[in-house]
């Protein structure tokens, strides 16, 4: 933690006075005094910061698929599994029998990546996707692995990757939070928290499925009209300024004054961004909005685009229910259907708006599933091998990186641990994961713990 008192070193107020600049100067002042006022003023903490090197991506959209999607039925095509169907094997204990995928696979795009029949729309973007087929994680338990995915650690309370990103880069938008999750109900709050990092870096949770303004806590006043609240805020600002005159130097109070202005801006901006009625019918339809089965994730994807456009740094969206211990064919078909159109629309939309090139999309669950059957028609948890994919900002499209063994039990080639995934994501954002550290409990702690290797082969 930076000492509070350093804040007085460069009071923005004094700086503004001596430089006699307007509020436009604030951004620069913020950057200069970032270290100085870190502990005392939340706004400063969120000011944009220079990355370690030139970034390929400016923001992240993380699509979290809670429950652990089966990789051999989605992005890790395994012909040998079909051949050996019924033979013993398939991971997690003896006596399991290999089960071929119930879905047909075919090749798509110039790259010829394999897609299952359940993802026809996404398959059209084959050449944008970088499949990570060599993923592995530490434990095949949902809670632990979800924490691992979000914080890089399941044993200790650690900040979320979104919080680390915000700590490293700040945010460009002054009217919106820098780390937003539309996926707040998935797993414990620890997945989205800032832990020992200042609270300003934690996610702001927004109910993605609701259309109204109450999607963010306290965003709307239950009684006062906007003009009455403005009048109230004017009095407040005036009283605060008078006190500030008296204090001469008080960065904390300056922060208070600014926090009210930002809050007032958020009251206006956030409901506006959440209101998608201005989007064309065609767009809404493309995302699958208004259609049962795709409406939920479609809306999240569209909101993600709107937040990305507005300069939000880290956006998490997600859909759960991928935990098919039985009845895999029917359930997985439904799951795939719920994301297929929305993601395809998101990719198209981002591309058309020129945003795909500097927006990093990351898709995946907390682990994968066994090629061996469970309960005859389901698959069990599998942490030793699974798949994720990336697209957009700085990654090679149409690439299949890493591989599991012939049946898909364990990652064997270009293996990628969660720490490696995080290291690579930070790298794309222009951050050296070994240099993004925070002193806590006597150690310099980082998102990637003691591990993390950047997967250089996937960088465009």
């Amino acid at each position, binding site marked *: *933690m930076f000492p509070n*008192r350093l804040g*007085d*070193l460069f009071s923005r107020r004094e700086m503004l006075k001596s430089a006699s600049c307007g509020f436009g100067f604030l951004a620069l002042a913020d950057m200069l005094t970032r270290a100085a006022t870190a*502990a005392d*003023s*939340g*706004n400063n*903490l969120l000011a944009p910061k220079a990355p370690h090197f030139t970034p390929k991506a400016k923001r992240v959209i993380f699509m979290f698929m809670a429950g652990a999607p089966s990789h051999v039925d989605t992005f890790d095509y395994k012909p040998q599994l079909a051949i050996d169907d019924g033979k013993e094997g398939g991971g997690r204990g003896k006596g399991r029998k290999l089960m071929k995928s119930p879905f047909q696979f075919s090749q798509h795009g110039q790259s010829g990546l394999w897609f299952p029949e359940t993802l026809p729309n996404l398959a059209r973007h084959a050449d944008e996707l970088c499949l990570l087929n060599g993923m592995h994680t530490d434990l095949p338990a949902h*809670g*632990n692995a*979800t924490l691992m995915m979000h914080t890089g650690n*399941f044993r200790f*309370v650690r900040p979320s990757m979104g919080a680390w990103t915000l700590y490293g880069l700040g945010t460009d938008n002054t009217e919106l939070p820098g780390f937003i999750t539309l996926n707040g109900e998935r797993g*414990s709050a*620890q997945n989205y*928290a800032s832990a*020992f990092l*200042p*609270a*300003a870096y934690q996610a702001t949770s927004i109910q993605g499925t609701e259309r109204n303004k109450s999607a*963010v*806590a*306290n*965003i709307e*006043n*239950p009684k006062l009209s906007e*003009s*009455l*609240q403005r*009048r*109230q*805020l004017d*009095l*407040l600002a005036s*009283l*605060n300024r*008078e*006190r*500030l005159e008296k*204090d001469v130097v*008080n960065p*904390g109070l300056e*922060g208070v*004054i*600014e*926090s*009210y202005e*930002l*809050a*007032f801006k*958020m009251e206006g901006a956030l409901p506006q961004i959440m209101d998608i009625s201005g989007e064309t019918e065609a767009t809404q339809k493309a995302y699958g909005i208004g259609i049962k089965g795709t409406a939920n994730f479609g809306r999240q994807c569209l909101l993600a685009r709107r937040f990305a456009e507005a300069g939000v740094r880290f956006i998490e969206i997600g859909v759960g229910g991928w935990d098919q211990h039985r009845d895999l064919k029917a359930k997985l078909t439904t799951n795939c259907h719920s994301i297929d159109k929305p993601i395809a629309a998101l990719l198209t939309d981002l591309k058309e708006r020129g945003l795909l090139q500097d927006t990093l999309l990351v898709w995946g669950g907390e682990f994968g599933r066994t090629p061996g059957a469970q309960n005859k028609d389901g698959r069990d948890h599998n942490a030793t091998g699974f798949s994720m994919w990336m697209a957009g900002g700085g990654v090679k499209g149409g690439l299949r990186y890493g591989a599991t063994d012939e049946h898909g039990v364990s990652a064997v080639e270009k293996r990628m*641990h969660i720490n490696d995934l995080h290291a690579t994501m930070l790298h794309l954002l222009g951050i050296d994961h070994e240099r993004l550290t925070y002193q806590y*409990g*006597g*150690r310099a702690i980082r998102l990637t*713990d*003691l*591990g993390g*290797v950047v997967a250089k082969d996937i960088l465009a």
Partner: protein
Amino acid sequence: MRTRIIASLLFTATCITLPRIQAAPPAGSEKPPTREESEYFEKKIRPILVKNCYECHSGDVQKAKGHFVLDTREGLRAGGDSGPVIVPGQPDDSPLIEAIKYEGLEMPPKEKLSDELIQELTRWVEMGAPDPRVGKAAQVKNKIDLAEARKFWAFQPPHRSPPPASQATVWARTDLDRYIQSARDKKGLAVAPDADRQTLLRRITFDLTGLPPTPEEVDQFVNDTSDNALATVVDRLLASPRFGEKWGRHWLDVVRFGESTGKERNIPFRYAWRYRNYVIDALNADLPFDQFIVEQLAGDLLPADTDAERDRHLIATGFLAVGTKGVNIKDGDQFRYEVIDDQIDVTSRAFLGLTVACARCHDHKFDPIPISDYYALAGIFRSTDTHSGVKPGAKSATDRALLKLVQTGSTTTATSRKTTKELAGHAERQKEIEEINAKLTALRQQQRDMRKVARQQNNKKKKKPQVPAQPVADNGSANDLRKQVKELEDRLEKLEGAATPAGDFVMGVSDGKIQNSPLLNRGELKDKGEEVPRGVLTVLHNSFGKITPKQSGRLELAHWIASPDNPLTARVFVNRVWQHLFGEGLVASIDNFGALGEEPTHPELLDALALQFMNEGWSVKNVIRTIVLSRTYQMSSQHSAADFAIDPENHYYWRKERRRLEAEEIRDAVLAVAGALETDRPEGSPVLDLPNNQIKGGKGLGDLRKATNVRSVYLPIVRGNVPEMLAVFDAADPSLIIGKRDVTTVPTQALYLLNNSFMMKQAEQLAQRVLKPSGLNLEARIDLSYRLVLGRLPSPHEKSEVFQFLNDYQQSLEAAGTKGNLQLATWASFCQTLLASGEFRYVY
């Protein structure tokens, strides 16, 4: 951190399994490297080795993977289990080169080196593998030199240095002031004037009780011209029950107090509140801090004169039980070591300001704490049973896994909060639980008997196959029995899962099976080393009592920490007190007095306070009194450009630092000024009403969030679900040991104060309070609101602004055709503005 190590080691372990070959070739036959060769090694080769190989192949050769180390020339030349790894000059015959090319062994296992690095190493072997390193650097470096380490300031006993003689100016009033003044004068700093009386009273009332002073209290103090006016106030505040509620919360931050397991499966701790109340009561009673330590660590092992005292001692050990618990861990041993780690962490950081838990996997990197010290402490806690009400791999909590109080039905239980009907239902359930338990015991015995008979028959069969089997039980087959047991167990889980009224249960610890802990290499259960005798940190001077084989050693540990000879305990605590009163500790790194911590800005003062603390019977109230009666504490927070230029961080106390109120203070103060604060302690905790299984959204949480006007320290602190207002204003994360909270200023706070219905409601209450007295004119009512909320009168300019606002606002309401009491609505809006103001959330 540990996870990753374990994961990477697993790969390594499978890779190096070649048999050990006898001897390495003589290393002395080569000529020493030239300067160029040495430079080449240092520049190119050593960094590759450090970065890619040291994690597994450095340090103690016995512990290194494959018994191979390459952090010394000797080690690299000698090779490991699989024999020599390099043949100088012949890369093709060198197993090391083979391994990095992944042509045989695959090293490093995590990822193949880049072609560039492989080429570099190959070239180096070709050159003859010149290696300029001498000696056994790694081993020497890793060994901790205790004699040298003890010279570190924090490990030296506090030392009494007389306060500096009085200065030219007679500013100092107490010894404390003399230390401060002397250091400040040396820096050429001037000093701020004394704070005015109303500012001082607001400051001291918040600092000691977490609440604002009432207007009457302000008047009384301002008008009290006697010499001991302040001392009278301090005594009043220290005697108030509100004191323990404020300072108890400080301690609860440090001991990661929470009312659920946290982690991936969040199960309520239904009785954690007892420990919370114990802490508050201990502070109010000014329980000597050394005794406070011993009770929390080993209350169960202390003699007690009365049942009430016995119970209090048991409750105190909740300190060791209320930490987070990863109940998803199914392995009992692993679960136990996670609990032990939490206990070592909280004990060492809370009392000693040392991060001993860093030594779980390896010797501490910065402090003189060898891994064996960690496992010496682990043995003490391994001999301790922790009764937290949860078990490894358990879906739900069970009260049976808790301790029971001695006194039943006393005021320390919370049965009165339940209706008679609920109690009756509970009694029935309890009866059924007892019956089921009795049945289960009988059935299980039957099962055991059956198995025994079956075994005997089996044995007989082998000898004499003719003997016919005897019927073993009249209760049917083994299958039937299993079914019966299963049914009863299911029923039991259901009954125990029901929300039951508070029993006489308590979270705490007791001595269990007495045993040492083996040293776990790299913290891994599977890699057990030698057993380490139970003990404490070897670097500290003070002696540790001998543990008999019949004791865990917890009581001895407690006495060792609470000893006046322990150089850290008193220092760490008075530093915490100082921080709460000045915003920053004399040692800024509150929870770390080790090598990575900060050095004290005023070492003599720190030691003087620590010594006085111990000499005056470890009285917490006395330390606080000493500090707040100093002139240093009573300075104004006024800015001075000249002093600011010299000492911008105010290390030398040229003024009093302003402080943002803590989350609890903001909420309590809002309630207090609205006249709505309920100061009575609520019984138990709403967590008691939660079912004994995972806390999920919906009904359970709804109960926790029920509106209440009790003091914030009594709100339920479920991990991951800290009450909204507290979370918004930086309350401590209950899963972490927090000696110093963050202070952030973010828009979510602004949104809360502007729009949350709690704030709207309290603002209206406050408005009613201001509008109620008859016979006051508008001006007097504005004065009253200022006095209530900010403890002062408004300036003429403020008054005119408020006047204007009230006018405008009410007119706007009228113009908009608003219905209802417009005067009240207008005043509520103004009152909310005062509550939202920056000044309200700061003490000056």
